[in-house]
């Protein structure tokens, strides 16, 4: 049974704050004074492969699950998703030269099995895990001593801020050399067989030309590595594995952790509850101390009403809900048709149904940049030159007429051949914001005279179908940055990853030795930019990391965002708002916006103060991203 109690038997948070009873909230409480969470357990949700599938190699196929990974493993650096702030973690310090980054390690770091964490572990991490993105930008890694690592960058090297972000993406404390020596050394030997890369159009780890044969050997070694390893995870993080069942996992405070004072909870109890309604029930019952996500308005208000110890914070998600046009299908290959469709949509209604607390940006179509950071990332003059897609049914009709469409007396639009179209919007059936807003979009198109239906498809097959172009329009996250908040990061999703395949951008084809046409997987997209010149998008994207001048980088992003908006490959319905829940009965801390909690009765609005915004991002993505904020403790 969970040890946390129901949240309604004690004075609620607002009562406590109103009575001035905040002493136990803003400071670490001595053990003897802990009232409710005496076992000092932090309760959260998570998922993992169920025993007997659970194993100790985080790279094993199927992984070990997200939540426990966050608390058991660390990297050299740490950054919060949606931010570019990079903090030292296993790195004590670092310095850059033109072509190197030298990292000095913390001295007293130990693996959970007691072995010392050294530079050899970091070297081994990248030699074995040579598919990690950063290795494409490196030539070699040196370890002059046990606590120093020198990363040698290719010439030209990525610009300094990006170097650290690329390194901060990885959890380098995941491959203990003393456990995986056999596979690390084999990978290193195989890489040494490769010749330096001479073909600039190709990528390779450590600037090496990995031949087909060598690639197979490397993959085989990796495959053997993923099948090996300890039965339980061995990391360097603040918590180490204790026990797992199909529905519960316990991880214990690591007694030899290098920063013992930063860890205030003795244990983390992770529950695996996939059902959303069951998750809300646990939040309401006060059985979770932190919960990620903002439910629909009525559920949010009901949870706060029923448990007076709950506190909810909102924040922008670096992700938007959007629709992508499939340009493989006619008439979506015509930019004017796509633009006409975009003018039909009323984004306010889409947002109200999809995510009430989100925010719509009516003027843009889809830019590849997170809408809330458009003003920061894109030059004002470029924004002014972007086509404004605010709902305009007259403009939509005008564009359709320009391409030969006619509206019949029955109110239905007909294509130049006189046919009434019938379109499908595909959406993954378990993604409520996408399905709900797509339904409204379909209704808006149909009402305008373009019959459209929503097809909510089982999520296990939806994405493969959408990538193959089976729907006229498909729903997914757009203008999204999964990692660091850099517009190049979100542009990669647009031009190289999920958005690319759904929109259906072409790849460069070439002939093999036998004369067969093969797909290189590389983007084949050349379009006029804001200055009227033709740009090779793939080249611009590849050029970006190496541009040292910030102004020039901004110009690349300005141009790509403008191209995306003008070509209208999709519609950003609204930027998602997410949130974090805190059970203040079991957990205290230096909560953000403390003075406003009474005023807003625990339903906190989006913060406007940058300091508060940072604190809320820490509270939300911090608990969610391999980092336990130190300013929270058991109550």
């Amino acid at each position, binding site marked *: *049974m969970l040890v946390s109690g*129901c949240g309604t038997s004690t004075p609620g948070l607002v009562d406590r704050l109103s009575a001035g009873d905040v002493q136990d909230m803003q400071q670490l409480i001595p053990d003897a004074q802990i009232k409710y969470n005496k076992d000092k357990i932090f309760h959260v949700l998570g998922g993992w*492969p*169920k*025993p*007997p*599938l659970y*194993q100790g190699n985080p790279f*094993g*196929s*199927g992984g070990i699950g997200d939540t426990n990974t966050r608390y058991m493993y660390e990297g050299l650096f740490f950054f919060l998703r949606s931010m570019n702030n990079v903090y030292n973690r296993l790195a004590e310090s670092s310095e850059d030269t033109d072509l190197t980054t030298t990292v000095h390690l913390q001295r007293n770091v130990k693996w959970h099995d007691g072995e010392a964490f050294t530079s050899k572990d970091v070297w081994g991490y990248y030699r074995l895990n040579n*598919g*990690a*993105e950063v290795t494409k930008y490196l030539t070699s890694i040196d370890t002059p001593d046990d606590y120093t690592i020198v990363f040698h960058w290719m010439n030209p090297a990525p610009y300094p801020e990006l170097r650290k972000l690329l390194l901060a*993406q990885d959890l380098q404390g995941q491959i203990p050399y003393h456990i995986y020596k056999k596979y690390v050394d084999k990978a290193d030997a195989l890489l040494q067989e490769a010749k330096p890369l001479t073909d600039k159009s190709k990528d390779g780890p450590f600037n090496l030309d990995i031949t087909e044969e060598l*690639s*197979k050997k490397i*993959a*085989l070694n*990796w*495959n053997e590595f*993923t*099948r*090996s390893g300890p039965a339980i995870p061995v990391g360097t993080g603040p918590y180490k594995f*204790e*026990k*797992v*069942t*199909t*529905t*519960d*996992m*316990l991880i214990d405070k690591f007694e030899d952790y290098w920063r013992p004072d930063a860890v205030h909870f003795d244990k983390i*109890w992770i*529950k*695996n*509850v*996939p059902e959303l309604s*069951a998750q809300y*029930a646990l939040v*309401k019952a006060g059985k979770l101390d932190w919960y990620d996500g903002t439910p629909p308005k009525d559920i949010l208000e009901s949870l706060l009403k029923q448990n007076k110890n709950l506190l909810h914070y909102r924040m922008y998600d670096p992700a938007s809900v959007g629709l992508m046009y499939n340009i493989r299908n006619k008439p979506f290959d015509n930019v004017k048709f796509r633009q006409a469709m975009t003018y039909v949509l009323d984004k306010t209604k889409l947002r109200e149904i999809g995510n009430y607390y989100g925010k719509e940006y009516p003027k843009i179509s889809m830019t590849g940049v997170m809408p809330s950071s458009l003003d920061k990332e894109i030059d004002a003059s470029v924004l002014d030159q972007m086509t404004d897609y605010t709902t305009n049914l007259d403009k939509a009709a005008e564009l359709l007429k320009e391409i030969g469409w006619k509206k019949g007396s029955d109110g239905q639009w007909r294509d130049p051949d006189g046919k009434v179209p019938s379109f499908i919007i595909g959406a993954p059936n378990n993604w409520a914001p996408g399905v709900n807003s797509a339904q409204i979009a379909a209704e808006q198109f149909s009402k305008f005279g373009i019959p459209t239906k929503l097809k909510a498809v*089982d999520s*296990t*097959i939806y*994405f*493969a*179908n959408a*990538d193959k172009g089976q729907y006229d329009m498909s729903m997914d996250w757009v203008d999204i940055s*999964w*990692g660091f908040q850099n517009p190049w990061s979100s542009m*990669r*999703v647009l031009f*190289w*990853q*999920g958005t*690319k395949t759904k929109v259906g951008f072409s*790849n460069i084809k070439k002939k093999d030795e036998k004369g067969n046409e093969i*797909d290189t*997987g*590389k983007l084949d997209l050349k379009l006029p930019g804001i200055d009227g010149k033709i740009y090779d998008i793939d080249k611009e994207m590849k050029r970006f990391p190496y541009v040292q001048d910030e102004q020039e980088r901004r110009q690349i992003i300005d141009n790509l965002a403008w191209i995306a908006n003008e070509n209208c490959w999709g519609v950003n319905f609204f930027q998602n708002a997410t949130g974090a829940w805190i059970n203040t009965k079991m957990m205290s801390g230096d909560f953000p916006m403390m003075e406003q909690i009474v005023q807003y009765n625990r339903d906190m609005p989006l913060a406007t103060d940058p300091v508060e915004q940072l604190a809320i991002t820490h509270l939300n993505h911090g608990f969610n991203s391999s980092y336990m904020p130190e300013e929270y403790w058991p109550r």
Partner: protein
Amino acid sequence: MSLKGVLKRIAVSLITVFLAMLLTFFLLRMTPGSAIDTWARDYATQRGMSLDEAYRQITAMINYNPKEPLFAQLGRYLGGLMHGNLGMSMIYQNVSVNEIIANALPWTLFVLSVSLIISFLIGINLGAMMAFKRKTILDPIISIYAILTSSVPNFIVGILLLVIFSFQFGWFPVNGAYDPIVDPGFNFPFLLNVLYHGALPILTYVITTIGTWALTMKGSAVNVLGEDYIIAASIRGVSERTLMNRYVKRNAMLPLITTLAVSFGFMLGGSPLIENVFSYPGMGYYIGQATQQRDYTLMQGLLLVTSLAVILANLASDLIYAKLDPRVKLEEG
């Protein structure tokens, strides 16, 4: 019961197993989706690479060839089966399907057998009482209950129980088979914890099957009550209790033995729904997980064992029934 009759039944069962295995193999491969589609998408996002590249890397990593001819796959599968090897999970490459089944099967058998025994015992007693007291209020009450519970899908009942007893009152755990704070093994705290976690899944099965047992038993008992030997016993002054327990119940139960085996099969087939409601780590739970991930080898292994269990239960009921009731002979022709 002749040896020839028994052998014939066994042969029919073996053919059924083979056909079920073939059907499972081909039907699974006809379903849309692939084990590595979603995986490749996540992998591309995590590693900052193109979807094509991610697909290529994963295909190499798990040694999976999506273009391997279907009959070559079948040949490999049958070859493994000959050695009792159900293959490796496609997603979790370091775990064999045999291992997963060995872990999951005991939980399913525990819940199913306990609930079957409870519902059978209560059901036949209620049925016998209904037959004896046909003019009382008991008969319509149990009849209405039976109609209601047999018409509502059992997973809906499971959800209702979960909402009421776990979420509202907090009396039972939300999910799982036991808490991580107890040490698995033959010790009292663990056994108690297992019973505590199994209570709601078992209750779900009991609630939804008890009425059917009662109605079937009532029909059978009413027939028996009309038999001459019952009337004779009654005239001889045999007490009502003895009449019910020793004369009616024993004879009326016989046709229910066959139903018991068939019910076991139905319950096993329906276990994915119940076990997923309670995240109970039995066969059904893993069938649900494997289906979501399109893990063909795991799915076909689990479904084969499920089919095997149903076929064996039917075979057992045929043989036992013939043994229990001397009037029934296994056909030999």
